[in-house]
């Protein structure tokens, strides 16, 4: 069934893994026996046609959904039973396919809230907001990294879509994750911004691991060390871009759209 071409990798090189993951929704399986191993420090792409189960797999790995069966391990530890907030606190942080920002907060406030999480003393209801100013330098640096300079005081709801994606990425980086799961981080972005975000992801991956769903195949080709192709809830192929794009099954699953970057 699911190919396991990476089983020769030493166990401690695998930072995040799912084994035989299954998720059933009323009579059908959105994820149907998927095993996935993400190597530490790599950029791992997850691709596949619409409805293949990519987002569902993300939801399982971050425990936003409970798997029907299967196991999830992070850093050698079984995290299958953890709550999503606890998974995030361990350093496995995901972004959402539909842009998720705090709409009524400004860009700066969005980032302060993300940075506040690491500081940990968020229950202080008797202190003023000024306490959060201590995060402003870091927030400023993050805004610069994703190209949001000058937007500090714009409410997130007023940002154009591409910038919302950038803000979401910045707030994901703000909690200093070990593994980033990015669900179509570049959807809706213009070309010049795609290049910028691709550079950023490459930069970020120097000290972290990235698992990303992405439909833009030229981005996938240039960024990823490894690609897993998902179709109808199952792993269709896995390997580097050259080998995956040659795979007749993969080409078939994309129904003639081809995999030409």
């Amino acid at each position: 069934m699911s190919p396991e071409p990476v089983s020769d990798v030493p166990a401690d090189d695998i930072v995040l893994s799912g084994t035989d993951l299954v998720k059933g929704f009323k009579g059908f399986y959105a994820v149907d026996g998927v095993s996935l191993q993400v190597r530490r420090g790599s950029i791992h792409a997850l691709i596949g046609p619409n409805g293949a189960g990519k987002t569902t797999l993300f939801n399982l790995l971050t425990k936003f959904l409970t798997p029907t069966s299967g196991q999830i391990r992070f850093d050698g530890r079984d995290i299958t039973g953890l709550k999503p907030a606890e998974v995030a606190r361990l350093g496995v942080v995901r972004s959402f396919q539909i842009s998720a920002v705090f709409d009524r907060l400004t860009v700066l406030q969005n980032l302060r809230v993300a940075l506040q999480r690491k500081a940990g003393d968020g229950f202080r209801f008797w202190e003023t907001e000024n306490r959060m100013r201590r995060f402003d330098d870091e927030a400023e640096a993050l805004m610069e990294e994703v190209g949001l300079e000058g937007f500090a005081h714009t409410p997130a709801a007023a940002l154009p879509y591409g910038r919302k994606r950038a803000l979401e990425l910045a707030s994901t980086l703000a909690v200093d994750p070990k593994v980033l799961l990015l669900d179509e981080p570049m959807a809706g972005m213009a070309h010049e911004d795609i290049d910028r975000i691709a550079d950023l992801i490459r930069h970020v991956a120097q000290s972290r691991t990235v698992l990303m769903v992405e439909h833009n195949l030229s981005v996938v080709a240039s960024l990823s060390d490894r690609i897993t192709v998902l179709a109808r809830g199952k792993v269709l192929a896995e390997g580097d871009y050259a080998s995956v794009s040659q795979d007749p099954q993969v080409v078939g699953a994309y129904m003639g759209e081809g995999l030409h970057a």
Partner: protein
Amino acid sequence: MTDTSAPIGLTAARATPAAERDPKQLQRWIFVGLFLFLCAAPWFAYPIFVMKILCFALFASAFNLLFGYVGLLSFGHAAYFGMASYVAAYTAKFWPVTPEIAILLGTATATLMGLVFGAIAIRRQGIYFAMITLALAQLVYFFAIQTPKFTHGEDGLQGVPRGYLFGIFDLANDMTLYAMVLAIFMGGMLLIHRVIHSPFGQILQAIRDNEPRAISLGYRTQRYKLLGLVLSAGIAGLAGATKAIVFQVATLVDVHWSMSGEPILMTLVGGMGTIFGPMVGAAVIGVMQNYMQGLGSWLTVTQGLIFIFCVLAFRAGIVGTIGRLIRRDI
């Protein structure tokens, strides 16, 4: 493949506004103006009437802390308001305590109830949360009916002595009483204002805007929502307990489900998620009820119509609409 949304150029966007617009600045001035206005109010309005509005304004503001800033619609805030009212009335009447202690005991009861009810209800969202809070409040109502030794059943606790504040100031004097109520009201409102603008309040608003995102950043959101509910319940209790001392009664009306409806109405009329909306709503509804008493049961109908009008015409409420016009959070 996907990419349903057309690419939107990032560079086309305008980076506005350049400077941080601190809404607190304006809000502070409004608080100062409000305080001065309320200091003068008993000279041109009946103090008892103003005190009634202040109690309900605080009640509605407490409700709005949960509804407007945490995004949880409680249909059972009468439980906190009413039970605090009973406890304050009972202790003021039968225990050798001064009125501020009676009010504190009522507030503490409501806070504790908030913790217990919150632990039960906080996992639910939307309409389910509303239904569970309603059910719990009904439980409190039946408890009040079933314990006539404590609540005096249909009669309620009547003739509660106002007593001496700190054992010194005679609250039988309306102006002394007014000073105490004004201090409680301002204290409660400033606490709400502080909570909203605290780091905790920012996180609450983040959870309100997008709870899954807050979770994915590692926030244990239920604990935040629970603390938000406890604060809301406690301040609603403070309002109920104060009301018991001012009017010298605590009755089944205070725990009845229709009492849970009052802050909802006031908040929607004034503007949910605004600092000053609920109190404006409380004033509007209070004045209306006062001048239309002659209408009898038509009052309810009139109120309903005004409510529908407000929801249809000003979805943001009075203060919310003004805030939009001047582009400030108030």
